[in-house]
């Protein structure tokens, strides 16, 4: 008993290890980090081509376009969240490790957000400008995306944990996760839209924050339960 206490690192250290490991892996496969970002830019490019090159028209739909594109990009990135670890058996070791799986998965989701959510937050103002969005909206846009993509990552992680053992789970994942993500989309796009019309945005921003806190506090339990089912077989 005494020796195991000494050899097992504390929970904080373990979570840091999980986080740094995922970040280090991402740095070594940086093209995989870049792909959702490129996808985000391509999707937003489709709208001027499909609708109209007139900035006046694009400006009106730009909050929605950016948000939908961000949602799809985060969905696309979910594929790589758990699958490699489940396939090479790492996840099984985590389940057996005796550490709280929900926190381990939350740390993994945090790493995932840093790699896929944060780049979107930084990229969105640039793409928004290309769609005619005024510079004054940048802070609000970045804030909604920062709060919103966090919720998307947690919800997506639940879906990814559920579908990780399913063959061709991609489409299924979208089917499961997108309806649940709609509130985030509504508040996020609405806040940006309000900001563009110079109206107060505190309401939707507060709601986005509330959603994020709610999902972060309860989501990990669902993730862990789903992952246990996916791993045992």
């Amino acid at each position, binding site marked *: 008993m005494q020796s195991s206490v000494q050899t097992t690192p504390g929970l904080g250290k373990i979570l840091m290890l999980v986080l740094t490991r995922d970040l280090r892996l991402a740095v070594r496969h940086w093209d995989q980090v870049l792909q959702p970002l490129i996808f985000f830019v391509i999707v937003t490019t489709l709208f001027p081509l499909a609708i109209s090159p007139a900035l006046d028209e694009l400006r009106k739909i730009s909050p929605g376009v950016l948000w939908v594109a961000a949602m799809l990009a985060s969905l696309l990135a979910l594929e790589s969240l758990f699958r490699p670890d489940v396939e090479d058996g790492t996840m099984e070791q985590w389940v057996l490790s005796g550490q709280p799986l929900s926190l381990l998965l939350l740390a993994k989701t945090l790493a995932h957000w840093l790699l896929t959510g944060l780049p979107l937050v930084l990229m969105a103002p640039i793409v928004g400008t290309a769609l005619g969005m005024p510079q004054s909206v940048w802070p609000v846009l970045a804030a909604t995306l920062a709060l919103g993509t966090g919720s998307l990552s947690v919800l997506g992680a*639940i879906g990814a944990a*559920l*579908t990780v*053992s*399913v*063959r061709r*789970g991609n489409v*299924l994942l979208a*089917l*499961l996760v*997108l*309806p*649940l993500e*709609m*509130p985030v989309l*509504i*508040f996020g796009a*609405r806040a940006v839209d309000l900001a563009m019309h110079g109206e107060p945005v505190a309401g939707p921003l507060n*709601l986005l924050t509330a*959603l994020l806190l*709610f999902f972060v506090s*309860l989501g990990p339990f*669902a993730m862990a*339960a*789903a992952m246990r*089912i*996916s791993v045992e*077989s």
Partner: protein
Amino acid sequence: MWLWFHKLSSPPYAYRTAGLVRPWLFWPAILLMIVGAVGGLVLAPEDYQQKDAFRIIYVHVPSASLSLMIYVVMAVAAGVGMIWRIKLAHAVAAACAPIGAWFTVATLVTGSIYGKPMWGTWWEWDPRLTSELILLFLYLGYMALRASFDDTQRADRASAILAIVGVVNVPIVKYSVVWWNSLHQGPSISKLAAPSIEGSMLWPLLIMMLAFILYFGAVLCDRLRGEILRRERNASWLSESLARS
């Protein structure tokens, strides 16, 4: 009470009970539907604004409330199955999903038919319609997840998590969607103190509501029996009881 509960959770007993209960739900449901239909379509006076078009509420409103209620029933059954590891509860949840999905479709279709003469469009992006549509997506996602596992037990547990996550999300989806401005009329029967619907219009609606609930019970019995048959297809009690009948 607990003995009864455990007895009911055994597949052979539940299979027989569902078969016995079913006619007691089905025929009253049909009877009440006829009463409600006559009351709603013939006896109730026509609305001074909406004329006869309002009469679709006798199908629309019960379908809508059932579509939500069944989701809750499904999630509760899934939760019971997860917590107490009762396989039959998972079977109930599995049986609920398609019924709920069809009630959701019925709600959308009747709402659409109502919307055409009233609002001039088949579809309006209004909160209630949209949240009902999202509810349909939730049902479809649940069924898709269930179908993607070959192993019934894993399908049960994975879809149970989805149902529970979904039921936590339904109010959030609902209220986030209400955030838009709406042209859907506010609820008119939940205000019990001063109902904004007249008595002669109200009673057929309540009867229809009851009829739909009983009908749901009857269909649930049928589907549950089907689900038990599928799950227990190799069990000895089943071949014995089939041989006897």
